[in-house]
């Protein structure tokens, strides 16, 4: 009995002393990454002779991998993770990180070793060349390492920090870098976990949750109310449970979103390579009750996410909602760059609100999304397009309408930006921001004129030599951080005057317009009747008569 009590106590203490640590911290301590839930591989890579050796570079590991996984490198080299290129067959636009300009750090081209630090390969340091032209080797470990101690340096074009690590080196998550043990990583491999995907995707835009709003370090170990799927108290799922891979390609594009899924899970044993909610939950996911039927009725207009992700940037990590590049470059009285931290996020961590290298930011947490009709198509304002600087430029225009039948009302994060453009040719500008050794990089020289000229040159596009700053909007479909059903958006949040859907057109929504024409006519009818009756009653009172009762 006493033993049992002691055991129980010990268990409680273990649980209490296991704080939810961010991955970077866990990595720094070189602790083991958690096992993949549901993973029961028939191969233990630590027993493979070919991996029981010393590795001195990443590509050496890849070489060992492909000696068995003969097609893996070819598959990876045809994926967007490797090429950073996406041809949108509907709009004909050539997109992908290699080509687009966004409202965050702007552009990859001209800033390669920094931005390509998250490339799934080793050494892609020139965007003008494809990774194949540069003979870049795929990086197997960044996705498959399960030892928890593999990482890439923040400015190394995808290379891991190897001993001896130069002091001051950072990893892609911003942590102090440590020397990676390649052999240990190679022997640990397995299917990707949250840590693998998250170390790049949770840090897009230059920091934790800067870009997406619904992808933050919170998702390494979220509570159930933050993400019902990924929480260990919930589904304990990993990214690739939804983003199922086929030959190293994943569904779930942000350029060509599957905004509507009317097919559902498909037939038994039918494989559906989509990352939609419906592919698991079906097209009529609510219970077979009156309420459930009524909720299912909404699926012809709404994306699941619209109700089931009431807010994004939940769980204590904020996201960047405004980014004004035009104020970058101001230096302190001492001539040194400034760094203000006037925002403290939910987990207690301060975030920069002004940086001389990046300008002003506004952070927000638990943000109510913006809603819009969306058919999955996103059209980018690429560098060759002419913009109207008197208007807010939509960096990525989302398409959709209530009439096309393929659109659903989706939740979005909207980044309000102010970024550089060629003020004579009216094109969005490429800028050269990172380059510690160049005399043109913005982050070393704080000179926009030089930074833009160098960026335009790196991108190989015409530049008038004159620049200005233009207000921009950039949209991010919100699809992660699905809340438990009890926290779904309540009916009255939308079915009300000035509710969440106040600006959505093309639907009839009860409760939104009580004073429509019919509503006013009806109220007038009731009021007129009441007035007539009142006059009648007063007449009777005045004449002191009450029909034959008197």
């Amino acid at each position, binding site marked *: 009995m006493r033993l049992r009590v002691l055991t129980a106590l010990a268990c409680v203490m273990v649980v209490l002393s296991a704080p939810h640590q961010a991955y970077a911290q866990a990595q720094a301590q070189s602790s083991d990454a958690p096992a993949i839930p549901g993973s029961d591989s028939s191969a233990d890579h630590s027993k493979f002779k070919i991996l029981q050796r010393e590795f001195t570079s990443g590509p050496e590991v890849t070489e060992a991998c492909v000696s068995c996984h003969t097609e893996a490198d070819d598959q990876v080299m045809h994926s967007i993770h490797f090429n950073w290129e996406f041809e949108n067959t509907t709009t004909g636009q050539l997109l992908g990180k290699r080509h687009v300009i966004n409202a965050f750090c702007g552009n990859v081209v001209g800033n390669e070793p920094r931005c390509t630090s998250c490339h799934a390969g080793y050494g892609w340091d020139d965007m003008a060349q494809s990774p194949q032209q540069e003979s870049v080797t795929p990086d197997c470990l960044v996705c498959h390492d399960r030892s928890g101690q593999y990482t890439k340096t923040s400015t190394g074009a995808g290379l891991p920090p190897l001993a001896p690590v130069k002091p001051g080196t950072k990893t892609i998550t911003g942590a102090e870098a440590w020397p990676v043990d390649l052999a240990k990583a190679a022997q640990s491999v397995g299917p990707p976990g949250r840590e693998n995907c998250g170390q790049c995707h949770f840090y897009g835009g230059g920091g934790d949750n800067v870009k997406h709003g619904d992808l933050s370090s919170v998702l390494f170990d979220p509570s159930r109310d933050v993400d019902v799927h990924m929480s260990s108290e919930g589904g304990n799922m990993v990214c690739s449970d939804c983003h199922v891979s086929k030959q190293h390609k994943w569904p779930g594009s942000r350029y060509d979103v599957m905004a509507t899924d009317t097919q559902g899970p498909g037939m038994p044993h039918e494989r559906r390579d989509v990352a939609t909610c419906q592919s698991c939950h079906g097209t009529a996911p609510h219970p077979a009750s009156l309420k459930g039927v009524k909720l299912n009725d909404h699926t*012809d207009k709404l994306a699941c996410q619209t109700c089931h992700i009431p807010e994004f940037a939940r769980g204590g990590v904020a996201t960047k909602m405004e980014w004004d590049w035009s104020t970058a470059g101001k230096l302190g009285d001492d001539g040194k760059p400034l760094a203000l931290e006037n925002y403290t996020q939910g987990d207690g961590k301060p975030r920069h609100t002004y940086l001389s290298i990046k300008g002003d930011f506004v952070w927000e947490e638990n943000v109510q999304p913006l809603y819009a009709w969306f058919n999955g198509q996103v059209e980018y304002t690429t560098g060759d397009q002419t913009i109207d600087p008197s208007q807010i430029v939509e960096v990525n225009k989302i398409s959709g309408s*209530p009439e096309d039948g393929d659109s659903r009302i989706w939740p979005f994060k909207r980044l309000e930006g102010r970024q550089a453009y060629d003020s004579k040719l009216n094109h969005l500008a490429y800028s050269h921001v990172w380059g510690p050794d160049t005399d043109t990089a913005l982050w070393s020289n704080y000179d926009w004129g030089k930074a833009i000229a160098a960026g335009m040159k790196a991108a190989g596009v015409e530049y008038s030599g004159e620049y200005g700053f233009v207000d921009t909007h950039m949209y991010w479909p919100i699809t992660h951080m699905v809340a438990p059903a009890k926290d779904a958006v309540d*009916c009255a949040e939308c079915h009300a005057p000035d509710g969440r859907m106040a600006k959505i057109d093309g639907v009839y929504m009860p409760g939104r317009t009580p004073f429509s024409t019919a509503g006013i006519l009806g109220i007038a009818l009731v009021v007129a009747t009441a007035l007539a009756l009142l006059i009648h009653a007063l007449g009777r009172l005045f004449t002191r008569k009450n*029909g034959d009762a008197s």
Partner: protein
Amino acid sequence: MTERFVKIYPRFERFWHWTQMALIFGLLFTGLAVNGLNPLIPFGPAVMLHIIAALALIVLWIFAIFWHITTGSWVHYVPTTQGLVKVARFYAWGIFKGEHHPYRKAYWRKHNPLQALTYLALKLMLFPAIWVTGVIYLTYNYWSGVPNATLWLTIAANLHLLSAYAIAAFVLAHVYLLSVGGSFRAHVRPMITGFDKVDLTPEEEAYLEADEAVRIR
């Protein structure tokens, strides 16, 4: 002519009337909330209760229609112009002069001509309007594939709303008129007990006493 208490509202009719009253009040209460004008009940529960009450009312109407047909009670609603102008004139004018209500209730004709016409209009126009538009509204997802579905839904929903307000106006007038031509209580009581004061000819009185003794007291 004698005045006697005669049962003119049988049990089913009273049940129908009061259940309908409760459901209509429930529908108006929840309907206002669905329309965004009633903060006393949240939208979601209001929708659920509104649907349940509406379905219950439709079932009740089906029974009531059956009852009207099988018992022949529908004849009470056959419109007549006889005395119609007199009643209208009484409400508009005579009542202020202290005149007596011109209509005398008969046990085979329990409504005055204006009342009968109003109820007929209610039963043949307003009630069908609200439930036809309501069913169209409720079943939207089964016909949403037709062209311009959102427009048709908007039209149906607005007609539903207008009908609802018209019914609310009827309820106001209906309740108000309970105070006309007699006390409010005297008007409500028959719909509870079933018995109302009715003028009977000696022949009618003799017939009721002899053949339908339970209907007269």
